[in-house]
Structures are given as C-alpha cells and as structure tokens.
C-alpha cells in the first residue's frame, strides 16, 4: 500500500510539473480545474472535447483536466473526495445524497434538458409506452433501479408486473429476444441495433412523467464559494463548445477518430448518430445548461414520486446568469 501511495505522489508531482511547464509557456496564468465526466469518452461529452481542443477553457484562464467515468465511478464521490471540482451527475442520485445523507452539493446547470434515458426495444415487439411493459422482461443497469421504479410508479404500474433483470451494456440479449426491452440512452443503442439488422423503437422516460435532467453539473458548496469565477468560466467555455458542436452534429466526431475517440471500442458512425440524436435534448432557448424554474419544478415533482425529496435550494441558477 505504501508503495502505491508513493507512486501516486510521484504521479501527482509529475502532473504538477507538467502543468507548471504549461503555465510557463503562456502569457496568462491559468488555474488548474478538474471535471469528472459520467462515462467513457463518447459523443455524450462532445461539447467539452471541442472546447478543450479549441482552447476555450484556456481563454477563460482554466487549465482543465478531464476525467472520464465508468461503471464504478460515482461522479459525486470524486468531488466529495476533492479529486475534481465539478462533476456531471444523474440528478436522482445527487438530490438523494443531499436530502438523505446531508451531502453539501449544488446543481449549477444541466447538460440535458431532457434525460436521454428511455426504454429501447425492437420495433416488432410493439412496446410504445410504459403500459406495454407489463408482463415483459426489461434489462436495467442496477445503478438505474431508481429510474425504472420512478417510471413504473408514475404510470401506475406495479413493480411486480414487470420482470426486471440486470443490464450489462450489451444489446445482444435484446436483439436475440432474450429480453424484451432495456433502459438505456435512446441516443445510443438504437444505432447498434440497426447495425445488427433489426429496427429499434424507443421512447423517453421524460415523455412519461419522469421529467428529469441528466448530466446535471454539480459542485460542492465549498467549491461554489471559493471558485465561483472559475465555475462561470467553465460554464461559458463549455457552452461555447456545445453550441459549436451542435450547429452541425456530423462535423466533429469524425475529427476525433484519432484523439478523443481513439480505441474506445465504439465506432465513429455511432458517435455521429449519438450527437445528432442528443441535439434536441441539450438545446435550450436560453442557452445550453439553462435551468428554467418550470424545469426545476418538474424535476422535483418527478423525484418526489419515488420518495426523493428535492427542493429549489438544491439548484443554483445564479452562475448561469453570469455567463
């Protein structure tokens, strides 16, 4: 254990000296800033990649470190542990952590106005609404148990009427008919299903009462108090990246084949599909990351249905106003 600690220390020092060199090369001093993403590199995070590549964070005097996520990474944990300043989270877990465990978080924006999570199935199985799930087998990632509970509850369906099995990120059981539907990003899996020669069908849980955001931008109260300028800078740069990326979603993913998307195991066509599909879910009249009073209210209502008690104080919209 001791040895790995030393190694960590060494890596830290190495990273710090690299950062120091980078700073020395610039006219303005930049502040180190770390963000924790929610998943591995894919189109879900295109806006940040673009802003990094185009130096939008540097323009805001931020030296951004981007941490990708994975199944064991709980983004909220990374900011509690102080390894990142900001995290992209699922509002369900964040709000539950605030209300039940007293975690000191604030939601300062949201990437998705509408949660891309939905029920994906094969067209031929005729699943078009939550009611069609009765008597069917649905694969759900164990971490999203809360979400499926909310969907069924809000649509008056008893949990026992649906057979829920774990989803392991592989659409093969769905295509082979071993399961009838899965809870996944509707912006992503339908592409794979079409490459496997089937026609996919999907609906957003958002359209059936689970009116939540996704990839909410979360910081600790302490970061909010001490790094306000940096946070506003991050929001501004990221919004710029997103708006440019969404102007034509087909442009950027192919350019990242040898950088951000190299060796992720996913195809560029899949990322283009993803990027196009998510456009309407991210775009907001008042700019990317906006949280309208109405939308916040909808989040609180939907979560209340599964016993998660959110409140307006958990959201802080004042930074968005400063962009």
């Amino acid at each position: 254990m001791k040895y790995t600690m030393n190694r960590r220390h060494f890596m830290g020092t190495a990273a710090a000296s690299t950062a120091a060199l980078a700073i020395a090369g610039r006219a303005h001093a930049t502040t180190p800033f770390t963000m924790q993403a929610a998943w591995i590199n894919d189109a879900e995070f295109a806006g940040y990649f673009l802003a990094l590549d185009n130096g939008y964070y540097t323009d805001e005097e931020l030296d951004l470190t981007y941490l990708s996520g994975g199944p064991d990474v709980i983004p909220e944990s990374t900011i509690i542990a102080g390894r990142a300043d900001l995290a992209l989270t699922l509002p369900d877990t964040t709000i539950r952590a605030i209300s039940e465990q007293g975690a000191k978080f604030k939601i300062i924006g949201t990437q998705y106005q509408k949660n891309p999570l939905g029920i994906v199935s094969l067209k031929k199985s005729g699943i078009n609404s939550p009611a069609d799930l009765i008597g069917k087998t649905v694969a759900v990632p164990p971490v999203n148990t809360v979400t499926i509970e909310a969907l069924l509850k809000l649509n008056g369906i008893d949990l026992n009427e649906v057979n829920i099995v774990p989803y392991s990120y592989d659409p093969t059981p769905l295509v082979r008919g071993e399961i009838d539907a899965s809870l996944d990003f509707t912006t992503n899996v339908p592409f794979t299903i079409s490459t496997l020669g089937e026609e996919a069908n999907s609906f957003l849980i958002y359209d059936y009462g689970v009116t939540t955001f996704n990839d909410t931008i979360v910081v600790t109260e302490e970061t909010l108090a001490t790094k306000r300028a940096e946070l506003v800078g991050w929001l501004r740069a990221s919004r710029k990246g997103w708006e440019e990326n969404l102007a034509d979603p087909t442009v950027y993913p192919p350019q990242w084949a040898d950088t951000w998307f190299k060796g992720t195991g996913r195809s560029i066509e899949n990322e283009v599909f993803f990027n196009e599909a998510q456009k309407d879910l991210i775009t907001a009249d008042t700019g990317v990351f906006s949280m309208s009073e109405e939308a916040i209210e909808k989040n609180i209502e939907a979560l209340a249905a599964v016993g998660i008690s959110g409140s307006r104080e958990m959201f802080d919209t004042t930074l968005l106003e400063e962009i």
Partner: protein
Amino acid sequence: MGNSLTSLRLKSVRNLVILIIVWEIVGRMDWIAGGALPGLSEILTRLWIDRGDYPGHIWATVYASGLGFLIGNVLAIAAGIAFVLSPTLLRLMRGVNIAIFALPPIAIAPILVLTLSGMAPRVTLAALGVYFVTMSATVIGLSQYDTRSADLVRAYGGGNWLILKLVRIRGAIPDILSGLRIAAPNAVLGAILAEFGGGGRWGLGTYLLGSLGRGDPARLWGIGLVATLIAGLSYAIFAVISSRISGSTRSVTLNTAIPSSHGENAYGRSIQALILCGTITLPFVLWWAFIKLTGVPDLIAKTPHGVFEYLFLNDTSAIARGKLLAALGQTLPIAALGMIAGLAFAFLLAISSRMFPGFIKGFMPVALVTQTMPLVALTPLLVLILGRGYSVTLWITISVTFFPAFVLLVQGIQRVPQSVLDLPRAYGASAWTEMRMVSIPAALPYLFAATRLTVPRALLGVMIAEWLATGTGLGNLLNRSRGYLDYGMIWTVAAVSVLLSVAIYYLVLIVERRTLVRLGMQNVE
C-alpha cells in the same frame, strides 16, 4: 521414455487441433445461441481489423498488472519467509492474510475507485490478487521440507538460518514458482476488472466496456483472447522455469518422520489469548488505517465503526439489515452449491490428469482461457446460452473456482514420492488402484487446502452472476447501492463478504485439523 514423451506431445497437439476445428465449425454455423460463440477465424479477423486499437490498451494492462504482480509478490515472498521464521507473526497476521485472500474483487473494486485515483486502483487490485497465492505457496514450500536434510545441517552445527538457506528455500522454489504461476492470471484479471469500472482512458477493461455496446461477440472474444494471451504467457514463463527446476529438488525417498507442528502450544494461555486478539483486530486496524491514510471523507469512506453504525445505530439500520439479510439468503445457498460443484470438478480433473495426461494437456489451454477470459465480457453471452437461472450462476461459479483447486490437487498428487508408488506398482496394481490407495489419500492435505482456496472464489463467482445475469443477492445489492449513493451499504457488502469467507474458511480449517491429526498428516497452509 523419450518415445512416449514425444507421443504424449503429439497427442496434446492433436487434441488442440481437434478442439480448434470443432470451435471453428460450431462458431461458423452459429450453433451456440445464434452466434454468441464466433469461429476462431472470425475472432482473428476482427482482431486484425482492430489492431490499431490494441497497443495502447495492452500496454496499460501489462503495466498495471505487471506492477501489481511485482509489488504483490515481493511482499508475499518476504511475508512468507517472515512467517516461517516466526510462527507467532504468522498467527498474528493470519486474520489479515485470510481477509486479503477472501476479498471478492468485484466488491473491492468500487471501494478502491472511491478511495484511490489514477492507476492505483488497478495496481492495488492486481497486487491483492497475487499476494495470498504466493505467500501461502512460500509458506507451504518452506514448511514441508525434508527433516533429514535439516538434521544433516544441524549435525554440522548449522542453525535455523542456515537450514532456511540451504534446505528450506531451495526446497520451496518449486512451490513458490507454482504460486507465481497461479498468481499471474490473477494479476491480469484484477487489473482488467479495475479498468472496467474505474473510468480510465486505456486498458483492456476500458476497451471491453466500450465494446460491449456494439453487440459484436467477435470483438469481445478477441479482447478475451488477448487478455488470455498476456496471462497465459506469464503463466507459461513460470511453468517452464518450474519444470526445469522441480526435477532436482524432489526427494527420492519418503521421509517417515512427521514434522512437528511447532509454535502452536509454545506459549501460555494468556499470551495465546493475546495473539488471538491481535489476529482478529489487526485486519480492522489496517482497514481503519487505510482510510485515514488516503484521507477520504467519512461520507464516502466507512471505517469499521462506520459500518457498525450503519448496520446497528442509525435510524435506517433496520432497513439496511433487512436488505442485507435478504441478499445473503439468496447468495449463500447457491455459493455453497457452486463451491461443491467446483471442487468436484477440480478433483475429477486432477485424477484424470494423472490417468490421462494427454487429455489434460489438450484441456489445459481451454482451462486457462476460462480463467483469464474476463467474465464481464462473457456473461451477456452466457446468459443467451444458459438463461438467467441457477445454471448460469453455477457455471460461472464452477469456472472461477475449479482452476486454483485443480492446480493444488495436481501438485498434491505429483508430490507423492516415487518409493510409495513403487509398492503398488510392484504388486501390479492398476493406475486406478494406485490412485485410490496411494495418491488420493496422500493428497488429502491438498484437498483441504483446495477447499479453503475455493470458499471466497465461490462467493465471487456467485456475485458476478448476480451482478450481470440474475439481479439477485449480494452482487445486485452492491450495484444498486451505487445508484442510491448508499456508501454504507457498499462498504457493508464488502465487509460482510470478507467476514463470511473468513468464517467458512475457519470452519473448513477446523474439520481439516481434526481429520489430519487423526491420520497423522500435516496440513497445508
């Protein structure tokens, strides 16, 4: 002799070729679950297409598992030597050793990701995977020495240190090497598991995660094969070294003196009680120290006291206990069943390896693949073949349990001295009679050791199946708890799974002691 060896080799090559041809046909015809098992040529074609992706991932995995292997083994061998020199230390550290051994990687990976950053979770998981195997192999090797050689050194005025140097370490090398051999795939799997969950950019585990969404079995098998190749190569290196060395250190005749179990009763009652106390508290002290050293806040990192509070003192404790007990009720029966099935399979294989060496040599590559193929890659495919009931859980459990038990049992059977085997042979006994009357009884200590080795792995196998296929029990509870940000439960599941393994381990140990003492045999640590 030379001739029969050549024919043996030919046979194993023949078996391998048959196997590959059968695989190719089955894969090409999509006979298994409509193509869940692609033909070898399809997998290789995919590998070739993906060749640009691999170097970065392979390097990351080799780096993390290699570093973990090195750190884990250096600590393990040093600890093994220290334990043999000081039985008191061994007894004091027994709780820690068994706890490390019993850590189910899938319960520990999330905790490491919570508390450490960068490559550290991968290296740590790899090191944890190798420590116990090598440490116990070192202790076995150092304690089962020929007392006659030691008497010789002593007669010439040599002390314990000289005996250790001249007799025991030399005699222990084959055991240590076989330990390293088993440990090598563990390091690779540990690193891959941490990569899968830990959110890094590179590593075969990360590649696997990204590839799962493609629904392309050829890619998944390709990643599995590459992982197998890395693990297999490291396994092969130690297998070759050990086969070169083992010939010169095996005793030619049987030592009839039974080594005394020294150290056990050397102290008075009060000191013994003190040591026992230390044995039990030490793992908890280390757990506490780990959290304090990493400096991770209380909210996410639970100390032993934190877990106790979570389970017994909080307002929500009753609910938490209820969830935990329900999960245990689902997990334990199937884990027990899986353990028995895995041991039975290992035992049958070990006997067959003595009686049909050619068959086993042909089977070994397959066995090794099952050990190094990351289960997260195969479970979605296994579900297609076996469904989501008990059979998928049992198969996964057998596949994670049988191999270490098999290696240990084969070792036990192989270590029967030639002179003992000469007796039944002289009387014209068949291979089976020889096996039944001599080799199996002589390997009894190894059977017990194998049982102990199997306990936590059975729990691991069941938890993997629960996580990815059945959605029940501890494995599912652990993953749901992540969605609820229920850190108390994440730590509780890890702690309970370790405690359970330790408890069952001791149960086996008690039965083992009684049986072996009655038979006048020494137990294998």
